[in-house]
């Protein structure tokens, strides 16, 4: 893999959360690269560490409970995790922006849209005049498809619909033309039509300003539509990484296969039973030894409890990794 093409490099990222009794490892040895102009999807069940990955990169983990204990996040030859706080302020929002799942609560209810949008220009372009900032705000709102932006700037978040608010969030995130956009379940709280509009909008804007997107979702449909490459996470680990087409055509990890089988399809006969993955995600407080998925896996053998599978690259397909000791025999 051409390393000069790599924009963001995450190595061995391990994050723990401190509870009253003990500390829980919610992210274990996560390693991946993000390339220029690429859309990288991160998919997995609730609590598998998708959002924590994003927050760890942004250094926005809830303090003091959440802590990155190991690993590096390299951006522009610098480790974001060891940057000074002041330096980090200049990266957040300007170089790496983030949008969140819940547009209802992600905007401050007591401030007007114009104020919240204007803050970004104040922070990152303090030399900008009031009028310039106002013009830029209208410009960006138009770009994200908000009608009569002049009026919207004077309104409060509760006067906007969910889709509108998410557009405002996108406008905020893109106002500095960041290199990387981290979108944490940006469409989960929206209805399907709005979801589609937002996804289209993100794709258009991505091409326009040539940024990379880390797209966090539990919706494989969204992944198929939006992403170039996919990371599948399970219980704080990456279990499989692959280009999106390969993942859908030839999934290697039993968990990925299970996920794909559990999507309802048009061609299955009506009223037939939907395939599911039996069982629940293991409690992160006491993770079973060996493979974390084995208790729910149909292909568990004795060795699965002995070896802890690491993500191994697959042949010359350098973009693919899978963390399963039996993947070869299972795929053949």
């Amino acid at each position: 893999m051409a390393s000069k093409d790599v924009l963001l490099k995450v190595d061995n990222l391990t994050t723990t959360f401190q509870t009253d009794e003990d500390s829980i490892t919610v992210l274990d040895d996560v390693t991946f690269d993000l390339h220029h102009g690429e859309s990288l999807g991160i998919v997995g069940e609730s609590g598998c560490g998708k959002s924590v990955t994003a927050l760890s990169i942004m250094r926005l983990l809830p303090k003091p409970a959440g802590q990155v204990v190991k690993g590096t996040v390299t951006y522009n030859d610098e480790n974001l995790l060891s940057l000074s706080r002041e330096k980090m302020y200049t990266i957040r929002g300007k170089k790496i922006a983030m949008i969140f799942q819940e547009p209802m609560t992600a905007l401050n209810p007591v401030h007007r849209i114009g104020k919240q949008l204007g803050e970004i220009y104040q922070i990152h372009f303090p030399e900008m005049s009031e009028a310039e900032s106002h013009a830029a705000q209208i410009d960006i709102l138009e770009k994200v498809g908000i009608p009569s932006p002049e009026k919207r700037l004077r309104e409060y978040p509760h006067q906007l619909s969910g889709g509108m608010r998410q557009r405002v969030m996108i406008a905020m995130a893109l106002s500095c033309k960041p290199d990387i956009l981290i979108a944490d379940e940006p469409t989960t709280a929206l209805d399907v039509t709005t979801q589609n509009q937002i996804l289209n909008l993100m794709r258009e804007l991505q091409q326009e300003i040539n940024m990379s997107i880390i797209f966090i979702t539990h919706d494989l449909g969204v992944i198929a539509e939006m992403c170039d490459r996919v990371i599948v996470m399970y219980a704080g680990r990456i279990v499989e990484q692959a280009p999106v087409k390969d993942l859908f055509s030839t999934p290697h990890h039993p968990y990925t296969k299970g996920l794909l089988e559990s999507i309802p399809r048009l061609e299955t006969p009506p009223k037939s039973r939907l395939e599911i993955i039996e069982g629940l995600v293991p409690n992160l407080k006491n993770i079973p030894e060996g493979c974390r998925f084995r208790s729910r896996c149909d292909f568990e053998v004795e060795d699965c409890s002995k070896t802890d599978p690491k993500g191994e690259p697959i042949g010359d397909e350098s973009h693919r990794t899978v963390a399963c000791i039996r993947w070869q025999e299972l795929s053949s």
Partner: protein
Amino acid sequence: MTAYFIRRFLLIIPTFLGITILVFTVTRMVPGGPIERMLTEAQLASGDQVSFQSNNQGIAGSTLSESQLNQLKEYYGFDKPILESYGIWLKNILLLDLGYSTRYGEPVWESIKQRLPISIYYGVMTMLLTYMVCIPLGILKAIKHKTHIDNISSILVFIGYAIPGYVMGIIVITIFAFYLEWFPLSGFTSNNFDELSFIGKVKDILWHSVLPLIAYMSGAFAVMTFLMKNSLMDNLAADYVRTAMAKGMEFKTAVVKHAFRNSIIPIATNFGENITLFLAGSFLIEKIFNIDGFGLLGYESLVERDYPVVMGILVIGSLLSLIGNILSDICVALVDPRVRFGA
């Protein structure tokens, strides 16, 4: 928003009427009114002999003649049908004529008016100082959650909360006024108050009010401080604070510009309530420090069954609480735009 407040103000009228009806009914129904009290007083004044006689003859006889009794009844409106006397009373109230105290014979409005400045002074001071201490302390505690500063201030605040105000009053009087003699024992002003210069007067009042204020406020910190702390902590964890941080905003700025404004919404809700609280005062503290305030007046007139005063205080008190409620609403609307448009 204007329409909303006009509606709120208009609602005062029926609410106030309801309150007057209740006050009137209650004072009418409770046994032992002013006439009975006067009878007993007259009996006591005229000695044993008469009292023995009156025992035989019941209330009607004794010291007061039939015509005197009727005069009294007429004076208090007991001779008229209840609705009519309510109407007269209500009309008088609206003209600020609250009747005459049966105890002192002076107009009720006069004795209330005399006490108002003292009660307002203590009330406003208590409220200002409470806000000035509790809001910054709450913010500090929220940001330094679970550190030494947080824990120690919690202990202090709870000790203050656990000690009743009058006990605190006795403690501070004993230490600072009796043994150390730093502050006066009681009163609102010194005896030579009238001779003092303006600055001297201000100093004199402040000097007299230090100990009572400590007694008033020692318990007041807990609720407000923790309200502020918890509400700010909720808001610090809110999504929009994370959004602000994700924009590149510094943590401190995010706290001030985003979390703080949202966390004073519950404090604003409390604002009007405090206005009534401070006017009611605490008669025990007023008694200890010999302050002639509202609380003491209310308590004494109740014990003496001085109904015109009791009714006057109830009416004015409830009017103030109505105004306090509206002030709360205005405060909330000022900090929370959702309220402004929602109504």
